[in-house]
């Protein structure tokens, strides 16, 4: 179990840096707020239109803000080449990967937790019709993004065009996740909520995340070798 304890330590290190500077959380929250304002100005604020469009808006916002936050979180390890130090540390690589993935998942969840009420506020969207399942959907989405993101962002650190390539790699892989998240959200906030449909997509997300995590654990080491 020391693998998990060390993973928790790596994750806590990242989160503590973030708690002290609050850089990513503040900038991402601001960014998410801006997106919400832009949405509310670019789409007609008719209740039925909002209801139909808001799941997609929410997931697009999470995708954008999440990618930027992810890139920034890994940039921190680049500035003083601390990624190398982390990889050289006498702990299993598995712990480094898990720790990174956990801290990113927390960050993306935080971003989602900011986006959702802002969208609900500005667009008067019924996002809190069924809050607990929606929270589950958002957490599952964050885990999926963090998992795939951590596999690639560490390797991308050395690449010059990393900011452009991160979404180029992530979005094609994450399309099922975004679509499933959108469908689940849609089913939860519909005029007549459809819990069966929502839970189908929540299950889909869960299996997607599980498959992704197994695959990352299997190949991340081959990817980060220097």
């Amino acid at each position, binding site marked *: 179990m020391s693998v998990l304890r060390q993973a928790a330590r790596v994750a806590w290190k990242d989160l503590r840096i973030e708690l002290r500077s609050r850089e990513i959380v503040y900038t991402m929250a601001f960014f998410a707020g801006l997106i919400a304002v832009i949405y509310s100005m670019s789409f007609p604020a008719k209740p039925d239109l909002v209801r139909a469009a808001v799941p997609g808006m929410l997931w697009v916002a999470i995708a954008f803000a999440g990618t930027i936050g992810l890139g920034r979180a890994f940039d921190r390890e680049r500035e003083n080449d601390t990624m190398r130090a982390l990889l050289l540390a006498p702990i299993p690589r598995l712990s480094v990967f898990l720790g990174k993935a956990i801290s990113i998942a927390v960050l993306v969840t935080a971003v989602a937790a900011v986006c959702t009420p802002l969208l609900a506020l500005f667009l008067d969207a019924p996002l809190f019709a069924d809050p607990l399942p929606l929270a589950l959907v958002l957490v599952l989405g964050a885990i999926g993004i963090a998992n795939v993101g951590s596999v690639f962002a560490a390797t991308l650190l050395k690449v010059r065009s990393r900011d452009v390539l991160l979404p180029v790699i992530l979005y094609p*892989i994450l399309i*099922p996740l975004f679509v499933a998240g959108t469908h689940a959200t849609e089913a939860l906030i519909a005029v007549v909520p459809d819990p069966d449909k929502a839970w189908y997509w929540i299950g889909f997300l869960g299996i997607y995340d599980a498959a*992704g995590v197994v695959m990352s654990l299997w190949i991340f080491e081959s990817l980060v070798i220097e």
Partner: protein
Amino acid sequence: MSNKAIPVLATLSAIGLVVTLWLVFTYAPFEPVLLFNQKIFYWHVPHAFMLFLATTICGVSSLVFLKKRTPKWDDLALATAEIAVVFGAAVLITGSIWAKAAWDIWWSWEKRLTMSLLLWLALVGYVLVRRFAGASADRLAAGLAVFGTLGIPFIYTMVDKSDRHPQAGSGGNVMTLTGPMKLVFWMSVLTFFLWFLTLVMMRVQSAAGERELRELREKGLDAGVLS
């Protein structure tokens, strides 16, 4: 993969292309609903088959490359990915033309078309990463291919669940083909398979050549022969 097989395969696929085209327009009967429009099916579907075949090969060989670090698997992954992009473009263009004929709309989110598009996007991503990611391009692209292949069953389920489109006539389903249509269709598949094989073998050869040249140059630089 030997050099001699390439010209033979190329010749066979050229002959196959001519014969199949001729058969498509003279021997295969009209499909009852779509009539002449259905002819594009003999190009569209084999290309789609090759797209899926190439994607699978690319994913599997990328995984083997990541695990074993044998560069020849990387050559194979690169070759199949690039060729899959070309075949995928053919699938999307012919699919779009077919959609116009069948539903009078250039692009509809029909499930197989959507799925081909999503796969194709991942493959284009692969090629972009290969070109612009510098020294770790091979690993990054291999990771993308592995995750992309892992996502195929999810994309399939997802697209299948949210699609409400009708089939484009009975000629749109491979399983319902009979008689001459079936024969011509499978000849077309064989032709494009041979063509696909030719291209992959050529690209693997050139990728291996590029790699050898790079290694030789590095050796030369280390030995001080080159500057």
